[in-house]
C-alpha cells in the first residue's frame, strides 16, 4: 500500500466523446516511434467493442487470489495504426489525394456512436479510459523482472524502462488491457498519470484539456480533495469492473438519467434508456445505489434545495475539480 494515492473521477454524464483528452495525451506522451497504436487515454463508445476490441472479455485480473489467464491482444484487435502520404502530396508535388495507409479496417473508437438498442430506442455513452493505477495491480504481480512498480509516494503505477525486457506478462495480466508493447524499443509502456506534471503542481493533460470538465483529480486519502468527496463521502463514483480484483483508482459517475422519449421525470430505474443490467455489467451491483443517490440529489435541487454533491459535479473551475499536492507527496529523503 502506498503512502498516498492519486485518483481520478470521471463524470460520464458530461463526456462529449470529443477525444480532446486522447489527443492531449497522444501529443504529450505517445508521438514517438513504435507508439502509433498506443492510446494511454482512449474514449470508447459503450456499449461497444472497446479498445483493444473485446478487452473486457478476454481475461486477466485476479480471482481467488490468483492471476487469471488472458491472450495478448493482436494488432487486428487494436487496428493497425495508419499514416498519411503527406510527403508526396506536400513536398514531392504528386497529385494523388492524401490517403491513409495501410487501409484502415479497425481502430480506436471504430464503432463510434453505434451503441445499443433498448425498446426501439438507441442508447450509448462514452467511456474515457486511462490506466487505473490499481491498489492491487495484476501487471505488477505478473512482471518477473519487477519492472512494474507502484510509487510509494503517490500510488502511481509505472514501468521502469531500464528493467523492462518486453515479456508482456503485464499486458496479459491487466484486465483493462491498458499496457502497450512498443516493438521498436522492445519494451512495454503505459499511462504514467502525468506524474511529471503533478510533481510541478499541474493537473494531468487529459483533465486539463477536457472541454466537458468531467475529470476530477486529487489524493483519495486527502479529505479536502474532490475525488475523496465523490468516492468516499457522497459515494457517487465507482470503479470499472470491480470484480476483476485489482481495486482501480479511477472512478466513474455512471450515466444516470439520459433523456428518453416521453419519459420526462421518470428515473432510470422506472424507465431506463440505458439498461440497468448494462451499467451493472460495467460497474457492479453498487451502481443501483449510486443512481438512487444521484437521483435523490437531483430531486433535492429540483425542489429548491442545495446539493453539495451536484455542485461538486458541476465543478465549474479547476480549483473545485483538482487538488494537486506536490509538496505532500514529495519523497522524504
Amino acid at each position, binding site marked *: 500500500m502506498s503512502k498516498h494515492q492519486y485518483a481520478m473521477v470521471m463524470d460520464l454524464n458530461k463526456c462529449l466523446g470529443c477525444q480532446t483528452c486522447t489527443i492531449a495525451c497522444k501529443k504529450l506522451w505517445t508521438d514517438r516511434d513504435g507508439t*502509433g497504436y498506443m492510446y494511454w487515454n482512449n474514449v470508447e463508445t459503450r456499449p461497444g467493442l472497446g479498445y483493444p476490441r473485446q478487452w473486457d472479455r478476454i481475461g486477466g485480473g485476479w480471482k481467488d487470489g490468483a*492471476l487469471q489467464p488472458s491472450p495478448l491482444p493482436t494488432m487486428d484487435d487494436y487496428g493497425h495504426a495508419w*499514416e498519411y502520404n503527406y510527403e508526396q502530396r506536400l513536398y514531392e508535388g504528386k497529385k494523388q489525394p492524401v490517403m491513409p495507409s495501410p487501409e484502415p479496417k479497425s481502430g480506436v473508437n471504430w464503432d463510434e456512436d453505434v451503441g445499443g438498442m433498448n425498446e426501439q430506442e438507441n442508447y450509448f455513452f462514452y467511456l474515457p479510459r486511462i490506466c487505473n493505477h490499481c491498489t492491487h495491480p495484476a501487471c505488477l504481480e505478473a512482471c518477473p523482472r519487477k519492472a512494474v512498480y507502484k510509487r510509494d509516494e503517490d500510488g502511481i503505477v509505472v514501468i521502469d524502462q531500464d528493467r523492462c525486457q518486453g515479456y508482456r506478462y503485464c499486458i496479459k495480466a491487466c484486465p483493462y488491457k491498458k499496457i502497450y508493447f512498443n516493438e521498436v524499443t522492445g519494451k512495454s509502456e503505459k499511462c504514467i498519470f502525468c506524474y511529471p506534471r503533478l510533481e510541478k503542481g499541474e493537473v494531468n493533460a487529459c483533465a486539463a484539456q477536457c472541454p466537458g470538465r468531467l475529470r476530477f483529480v486529487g489524493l483519495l486519502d486527502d479529505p479536502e480533495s474532490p475525488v475523496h468527496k465523490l468516492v468516499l463521502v457522497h459515494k457517487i463514483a465507482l470503479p470499472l469492473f470491480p470484480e476483476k480484483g485489482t481495486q482501480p483508482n479511477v472512478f466513474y459517475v455512471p450515466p444516470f438519467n439520459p433523456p428518453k422519449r416521453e419519459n420526462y421525470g421518470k428515473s432510470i430505474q422506472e424507465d431506463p434508456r440505458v439498461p440497468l443490467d448494462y451499467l451493472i455489467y460495467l460497474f457492479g451491483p453498487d451502481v443501483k445505489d449510486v443512481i438512487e443517490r444521484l437521483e435523490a440529489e437531483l430531486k433535492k435541487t429540483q425542489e429548491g434545495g442545495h446539493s453539495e454533491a451536484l455542485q461538486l459535479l458541476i465543478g465549474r473551475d479547476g480549483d473545485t475539480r483538482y487538488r494537486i499536492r506536490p509538496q505532500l507527496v514529495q519523497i522524504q529523503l
Partner: protein
Amino acid sequence: MKTRQLATIVSVWLLLSTIWAQTKAKPTPGQFLPVAVSSASADNLLHGGPAAWNQIAVKHVALNRTPPLYDTDEPATLDIPSVDVRIARTGGNLLVQLSWRDSTHDAITLAEVPNTPPETRFRKVPTEADDRFFDAAAVMFPTKAASGAIAPSLQMGDAEHPVEIYYWNATRGAMVMQAQGRGTTRRTDRNFLANSTYQTGQWSVIFELPDLPAGTTVAFAVWNGRQKDRDGRKYFSVWQVLE
C-alpha cells in the same frame, strides 16, 4: 486445476533437486566440455562458416524444459531436446558455437529508426506486431571464478555468486546481461560479437566470450519464439565445466 498445481510442484521439486545436486556435486566426466586451441582467428571462426569449425570436437548437451512457473502460462512443447556445443580458444577469446534444431524460424528485421527526432518527421516507425517473440540463446558463467566445487545457482546465480549472461536474440542481436538470482537479470550497456545462421531447420550461433579459464562452469539456454518463449520459459542445460 489441482492436478496441474500438483504437477507443477512435483516438477519444480524435481528441477530444484537436480539443480541442487548439480550445484553440490563435483562434475562427472560427462559434464566436461572439450576446448580446442585453434590456430584460426576469432574473425574466421565467427564468420568463416561451418568449414572453420569442422575440426573442433562437438559435445551434445541435453536441454531441460523449465516447468510452467505461472498458472497463466501457455503450454510449451519439449521440441528442442539438446544443443550441440563446440568451443575454441583463440587470440585471447573463447568462441562458442551453439547449434540446435528448431523447425520454426522466428526472427525478423526491424525497420530502421531514422536518426532524427520523431517530432520532426511526418512518419513514425510503427509497431508492426505486439504479440511475436523471437528465437534466442544464451551462455551463462560466473562473474567471479568459483572456488572449489561450488557453482552458482543455476537460476541466474545468487547473491554471493553473480553471473554474466551472454544473450543473443535472433531479432534484437547480442547483449551482455548480469544477474544475482532469479528475477534480477538486467541488461548492461555492453555488447559482444556474435554471428548466426539458420538453414534447413537448424540454428547455428557463434558467441565471442572472454577468455574463460579451464574449470569455469558454463550453462546454456535456448528459447523458441514460436511458442512465445521468453524469460524463464526456455530450454536450459545444467552446469558444464570447461576442460
